[in-house]
């Protein structure tokens, strides 16, 4: 008998249908991944199993845990099950823990919620559980507070809380999305080990197909609240039936068609021994201030028409370096020269206007009260005689067409656009002054895979059309690999390796680059899988 069986589950919030006829099951010791793009209803499925839906939610269908019907339980018996029979791990480890309670208190709370035992005994159990998830007591005593731990360590605490009562079912909702690749690899390994050790069922919600392919025994693909395809991982990957599944995998491993880079062009951006320090808060009143060196003497060039990637984990200094290149923060030592002028407050507008930027979050990087036309034309404040009237309208229409939007979109407000369209507007804003260098700061990280593939194609097309150079900053190695000619790998404020993208990825020299590349989950080679299945089929 399966551990969890969801049958014909439909869910609506108010008049809006969220889930339609969702059916799948999980056996003990099995990892089932529910995947799909944003809005596919995968998180709502997880919350429905926990029975933690919003008050206005209406459900029909069955959710059976062993032989108990969860939809028919009273709130009281559901409370007795949550944390005891079903544990849950959430996406954001930075906010999933109560900042005012120690990690010990929070794990003990789960234990004592469901079992009557003296505090000391519960504490011993919590300590054992924290040790099991990789937080040994000598370094992470129960008295630690969440703010004293890193994101990965906090996620371990959340996992310890979720499995403290050895639940039969563990639900993990995007458990590693907010983490760096090397941390992600460790957390995924931990989850796999725990599933095997406790014979739990794991319902894993994730949008990352590489993680899915690596972890799951079975895959459930969802779109707009419906299950479009499900099956055993190997079988499903080798014989994808539904066009959406195929499209999803294609978009995940999308390779853009990048024009060949020309050699021997002049450097347009030169960074020389750039050093950036941040003052730390004073610990003593009259002691000299301590400094944190975020960027430690970095040097590199970007040549005309060159596409350069910058990769590294959070805290490695890549955002600080980006801000320095944009002239938003001063350097403490070294220099940055762009288009022949030193970057800084006194930089002539004619040089400054040649560098533009596209930021990560398409939802918060625009003023919601401005129309698209006004947003697009803002960079013109750098120009002495900005275009006016007909000429300006023509420029706006051209740039909107250039990024795949329509000229009438200029009169709309930003909330009328989807995330992908907003990122196109951000690119249009960067393009309008005809820059020669664009900084893409995690510009596709917040987008769904299919949208991401379209934006990457757009970037490649624009680079061909306008002979653009860009610096593409990302934590996602596969994306950087597909859109850059050269790559810089950054760790602890230093560039530890740089070179031709393909060379660095195929034969990384620095141990850190090797760690990064090994940790990044890879999409399986679908062609190989298919032929493999066919051969085994033939021989059978």
């Amino acid at each position, binding site marked *: 008998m399966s551990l969890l069986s969801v049958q014909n589950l439909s869910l609506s919030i108010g008049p809006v249908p969220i889930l339609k006829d969702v059916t799948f099951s999980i056996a003990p010791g099995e990892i089932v991944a529910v995947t799909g793009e944003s809005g596919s209803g995968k998180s709502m499925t997880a919350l429905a199993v*926990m029975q*933690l839906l919003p008050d206005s939610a209406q459900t029909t269908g069955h959710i059976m845990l062993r032989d108990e019907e969860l939809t028919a339980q009273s*709130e*009281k018996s559901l*409370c*007795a*099950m*949550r*944390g*005891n029979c079903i*544990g*849950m791990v*959430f996406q*954001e480890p930075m*906010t*999933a*823990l*109560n*900042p*005012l*309670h*120690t990690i010990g208190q929070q794990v003990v*709370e*789960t234990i004592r*919620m*469901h079992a009557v035992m003296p505090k000391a005994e519960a504490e011993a159990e919590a300590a054992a559980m924290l040790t099991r998830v990789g937080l040994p007591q000598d370094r992470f005593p129960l008295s630690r*507070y969440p*703010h*004293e731990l890193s994101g990965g360590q906090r996620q371990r605490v*959340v996992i310890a*809380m*979720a499995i403290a009562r050895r639940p039969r079912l563990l639900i993990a909702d995007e458990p590693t999305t907010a983490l760096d690749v090397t941390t992600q690899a460790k957390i995924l390994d931990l989850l796999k080990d725990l599933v095997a050790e406790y014979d739990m069922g794991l319902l894993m919600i994730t949008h990352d197909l590489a993680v899915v392919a690596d972890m799951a025994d079975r895959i459930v693909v969802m779109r707009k609240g419906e299950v479009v395809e499900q099956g055993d991982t190997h079988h499903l990957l080798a014989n994808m039936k539904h066009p959406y599944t195929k499209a999803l995998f294609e978009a995940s491993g999308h390779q853009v068609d990048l024009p060949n880079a020309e050699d021997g062009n002049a450097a347009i951006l030169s960074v020389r021994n750039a050093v950036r320090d941040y003052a730390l*808060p004073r610990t003593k009143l009259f002691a000299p201030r301590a400094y944190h060196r975020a960027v430690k003497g970095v040097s590199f060039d970007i040549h005309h028409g060159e596409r350069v990637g910058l990769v590294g984990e959070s805290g490695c200094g890549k955002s600080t370096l980006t801000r320095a290149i944009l002239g938003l923060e001063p350097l403490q030592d070294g220099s940055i020269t762009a288009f022949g002028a030193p970057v800084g407050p006194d930089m002539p507008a004619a040089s400054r206007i040649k560098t533009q930027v596209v930021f990560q979050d398409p939802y918060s990087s625009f003023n919601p009260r401005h129309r698209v036309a006004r947003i697009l034309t803002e960079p013109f404040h750098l120009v002495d005689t900005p275009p006016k009237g007909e000429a300006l309208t023509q420029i706006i229409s051209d740039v909107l067409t250039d990024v795949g939007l329509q000229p009438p979109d200029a009169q709309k407000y930003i909330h009328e656009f989807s995330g992908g369209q907003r990122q196109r507007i951000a690119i249009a804003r960067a393009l309008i002054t005809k820059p020669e260098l664009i900084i893409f700061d995690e510009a596709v990280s917040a987008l769904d895979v299919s949208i991401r593939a379209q934006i990457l194609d757009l970037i490649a097309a624009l680079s061909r059309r306008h002979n653009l150079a860009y610096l593409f900053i990302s934590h996602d190695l596969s994306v950087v690999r597909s859109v850059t000619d050269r790559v810089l790998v950054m760790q602890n404020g230093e560039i530890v390796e740089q070179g031709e993208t393909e060379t660095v990825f195929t034969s990384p020299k620095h141990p850190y680059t090797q760690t990064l590349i090994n940790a990044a989950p890879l999409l399986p080679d679908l062609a190989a899988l298919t032929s493999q299945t066919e051969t085994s089929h033939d021989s059978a």
Partner: protein
Amino acid sequence: MLRYTLKRALSLGLSLVVASLVIFFVIEVVPGDPASFMLGLNAQPDTIAALRSELGLDVSKLERYLAWVGGMLQGDFGTSYTYRTPVTEMIGDRIWVSLPLALYALTLSTLIAFPAGVYAASRRGKPGDMAVMGATQLGIAVPNFWFAMMLVLIFAINLRWFSAGGFAGWDKGAAAAMKSLTLPAIALALPQSAILARVMRSALLDVLGEDFMRTARAKGLTRRQALMRHGLRNAMIPVLTIIGMQFSFLLAGAIIIEQVFFLPGLGRLIFQSISARDLIVVESVVMLLVFLVILVTFLVDLAYAAVDPRLKSRT
């Protein structure tokens, strides 16, 4: 924690020095010489001069400032120009009205606001929430002296449960004294509790939307348990700030209520002293109020640290 406390205490001391300087010199530049005011328009210049030297007004400003501060440190606030009695004595009588009144009102306001705020937050958008929010809207809009008069009308004149005004004095026993402070405390507390309830509600609603509240529910806590164990303490930071500000207001801002109930409090003393150009009393009472306000801020800072462990490690 010790370092945090010491740092807060240092800032408390510095604030007091700055406050004393500001108070002294601002009051010094206010026009009107106390001596000529006390002696009237027809006084002879030499009489005024004699009185000025008697009052200690003829020495330099710096000397007077040092003498004033030095005296206060030893508990001597000087002598009132008009009443010719030690200011310490005048303040001593009145602070035992104002301080208990402020504490009484604050306690009442907190006792009303906490349950009302928690109730409204846990029933967001439902009739209970709307009723509480409507009542608080009214509480904020209606001035406290109107409440005071209504209370007098109902409980003193019609029901005759309380006296309409005056202070029984602590020598008649704590019960009698507290009884005469009850109506003024309620009048002061109602508008304050309306503000506090709204702050409590919105702080709790913010916390209810946090990820860790969902985590708490996933552990098996009921809505109520999650609210009590994880919600309340996280909502305390904004609430503590407001409570601190309200105490300061209740201490110095009770002047109208003191008038309505004929209470011999600090508010009335300051009002009378300003009208009589009794600078030494004004200076001393203002300084005392400043001291109490800064002290409350200090205590609120300590309370923050007790509530939020992140503050301790940051400093």
